[in-house]
C-alpha cells in the first residue's frame, strides 16, 4: 500500500491506495475512503442515537440532517479507536442523546451515510477524524 497525495482547491486530500506493487509496504490500513464524495462535503446537525466504538472503525448513528432539510437516520463512519485516541478523542466524548454538528463527506450511493471530517461535540469542542479521513473543506458553523 502507498500513501498518495493530490491537491485540489488547495486542500490536502489523502487516500490510502492498495497497490499490487507495494502491498508489502509501509501502510496497513483497513479500506479506501474513495466511496465517499470528498468534494461535496455537507454540514449536518442532529441527535446521537448510538455510538459504536470499535475496530476497525467507529460509527456514529445520528438522527438529523442539513439545515432546512428533513431529519433522517445517518450512519457516520469515523477512524479507528487507536487513531482517535492518539489525536485527542475519548470513547466517552460522544454519548447517546448528545446534540452534535458535523462536517461529513456523503457516500456516493446516495444513502444517508457519510465519512466524518469534523464534529462539534455537545460540550463545544471540535474534533477532527484524523489524517486519513482528510480535512473539512467547509466551516463547521
Amino acid at each position: 500500500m502507498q500513501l498518495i497525495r493530490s491537491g485540489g482547491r488547495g486542500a490536502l486530500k489523502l487516500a490510502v491506495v492498495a497497490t499490487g506493487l507495494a502491498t508489502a509496504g509501509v501502510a496497513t490500513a483497513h479500506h479506501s475512503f474513495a466511496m465517499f464524495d470528498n468534494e461535496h462535503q455537507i454540514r449536518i446537525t442532529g441527535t446521537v442515537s448510538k455510538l459504536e466504538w470499535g475496530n476497525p472503525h467507529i460509527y456514529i448513528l445520528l438522527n438529523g440532517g442539513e439545515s432546512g432539510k428533513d431529519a433522517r437516520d445517518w450512519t457516520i463512519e469515523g477512524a479507528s479507536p487507536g487513531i482517535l485516541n492518539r489525536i485527542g478523542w475519548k470513547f466517552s466524548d460522544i454519548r447517546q442523546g448528545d446534540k452534535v454538528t458535523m462536517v461529513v463527506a456523503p457516500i456516493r450511493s446516495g444513502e444517508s451515510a457519510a465519512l466524518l471530517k469534523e464534529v462539534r461535540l455537545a460540550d463545544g469542542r471540535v474534533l477532527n477524524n484524523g489524517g486519513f479521513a482528510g480535512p473539512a473543506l467547509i466551516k463547521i458553523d
Partner: protein
Amino acid sequence: MSHSVRLRLVAAGLAALVTLSAQAAAPRPVPKIEGPDFSGSWEDPYPPEVLRPADSPRPVQSVPPAPLKEPWLSQARERQRKAAAAIARGEPIPNNGLRCIPGGMPSMMGTVFPLEVLQSPGQVTIIQEAFAQVRRIYLNEKQIAFEEAEPLFFGHSVGRWEGNTLVVNTIGIKEGVGTVHSPRMQIDERMVVTSADSWEDHITITDPEYLTQPWSYTIKYNRRKGYKINEFVCEDDRVYADPQTGKQRLRTGE
C-alpha cells in the same frame, strides 16, 4: 532391621527429598537481556493520522516498487492501474484489509499505527497495533531449512546482535501474504538502534524466483514515550464487499 533403624532411614530419606525439592524450587536469577534497550512504543516520525494544515508538505515513508521479474511485474502494474482507476471512479476495489486480514511480514513493520518492542532473554517480540500483529525473533538460533518452514503470516525469525544492530533473518511467509513470492523468499533486516529514542529497520528482500534484484528500503521509528498500545480486535465492520457486484458498500442504520 529394627523398627528404630527403619524409622531413621525413612526420616533420612524424607530429609533428602525435602533438600532436593528445595533445590529445585530455588529461584534462578533473570538471564541477561542482550543488546541496547529499544523496548517501548514507536511510531512514524510524522504520524500519518495527524491532520496537517492544507498545503503543508508531509514526508511520507514510502516503499519502492518490488523489482519483480516478468510476467509478475506487468501483472502488478495492471492491478495497480485498475486500483487507481477504481479509486478515481469512487469505487475502490475491496482488499484483504477490508476482510480484517492482517498484512503480515514485512508490511507489519510499517508505521500507519505505532508498534511496540519487547526485549526478553533470548527473544525480541514486536507487536504492531494495527490488527494486533505479533512477531517473535529468536536470538542466537540457527534458521531452519526452507523445507521445514511452515508457511505463516509473520514467518520464522532468528536474530543476533552486532553492536547496536539487531540482524534478523525471516523465512516462511505464506503465499498471498504481501507481494507475490516463492517459498524461498528471505527478509533480512538490520534493526539499527540509532539513539535512545530512535531506530531504523533496513529491510532487504531477496527471492531468486520472483525478484530481479534485492528489494531494499528503510523504515524509521521515533519513540512515543509513555504510549500504551491500543487493543485492535477487528469486529463486525459496516464496510463490506458486496457479494453480487464485488464493490465496497457500507451497511447503514441499526
